[in-house]
C-alpha cells in the first residue's frame, strides 16, 4: 500500500489552480470534469512527477467551513510541504504577496513556517536539518 493522493479543500478551483501552480510552482497532473463546475484537479511537484498527487477538492460540503475555520483560527496547517530552505522560500513567497501566519522558526531539529493558500487553508513548509 502506498499514499498516491491526498487532498485539500479549496474555495475556488480556478483560483486554487493558479495559486498552486503559478505561486507554489506545482504542475497540473489531472484535470477532469466531474459534473457541474467541479473538476478532478490534481497537482504534483515538478521534482517528483510520479510522486504523490495533491487533489484540489471543491469545498462545497457544509462541514468544510466550520472545520477549516476552527483550524485556521488556531493557526493549524492542513498539509505540509518539504522545501530545501524555509527562509528562502518564505522570502520568495512573501515577495509574491503570500501571507504567513507563522514566519520561519527553528524548532529543534526542523525549521517551519505557515502560510495562507488564499483558498481557505493554512499550509506548513518545513526543512529538515542537513
Amino acid at each position, binding site marked *: 500500500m502506498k499514499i498516491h493522493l491526498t487532498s485539500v479543500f479549496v474555495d475556488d478551483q480556478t483560483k486554487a489552480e493558479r495559486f498552486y501552480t503559478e505561486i507554489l510552482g506545482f504542475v497540473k497532473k489531472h484535470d477532469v470534469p466531474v459534473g457541474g463546475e467541479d473538476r478532478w484537479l490534481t497537482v504534483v511537484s515538478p521534482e517528483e512527477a510520479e510522486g504523490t498527487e495533491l487533489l484540489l477538492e471543491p469545498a462545497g460540503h457544509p462541514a468544510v467551513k466550520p472545520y477549516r*475555520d476552527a483550524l*485556521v*483560527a*488556531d*493557526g*493549524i*496547517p492542513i498539509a505540509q510541504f518539504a522545501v530545501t530552505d524555509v527562509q528562502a522560500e518564505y522570502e520568495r513567497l512573501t515577495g509574491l504577496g503570500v501571507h504567513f*501566519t*507563522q*514566519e520561519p*522558526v527553528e*524548532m*529543534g*531539529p*526542523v525549521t*517551519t513556517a*505557515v502560510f495562507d493558500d488564499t483558498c481557505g487553508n493554512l499550509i506548513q513548509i518545513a526543512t529538515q536539518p542537513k
Partner: protein
Amino acid sequence: MERAWASELIGKSSLAYAGGVADDLFKALADPTRRTILDELADRSGQTLFEICGRLSMKHQLGLSRQAVSQHLAVLESAGLVETRREGRYKYHDLNTAPLRQITERWPVPDASRPEESTP
C-alpha cells in the same frame, strides 16, 4: 497642588490594582510551562496557538495537549500577560509585560527602579 493630588490618586489606584490582580499575576508566573510560553512570546510576539504548541514540543520537549496549552494561555491572559487579537480568520497571542511592573512598584529594586531611568 493639583499635580500632587493627581499623583496621589494614581498611587492609590495602582495600589488597588496591585492588590486586585497580584494573585493572578503570581499564580500565572508560578508555573514553569507558563514561564516558557512567556519566553517564547518574548522571542516573537504575535503567535498562533499552533506556533506556541510547536515551540513547546519541538524546542522544549514539553509534550502538552493543545487543550493544556490553551488553559495555560487562559491563565496568562487573566493575569494580563498575554493578550489575544483576531486578525481576519486568524487569532494571535501577544506578550504584554506591563503587569510585571507591579512587582517592582511593590518591592522597588535599587537603581533599576529610579524614575529617571525608567522609560517615559
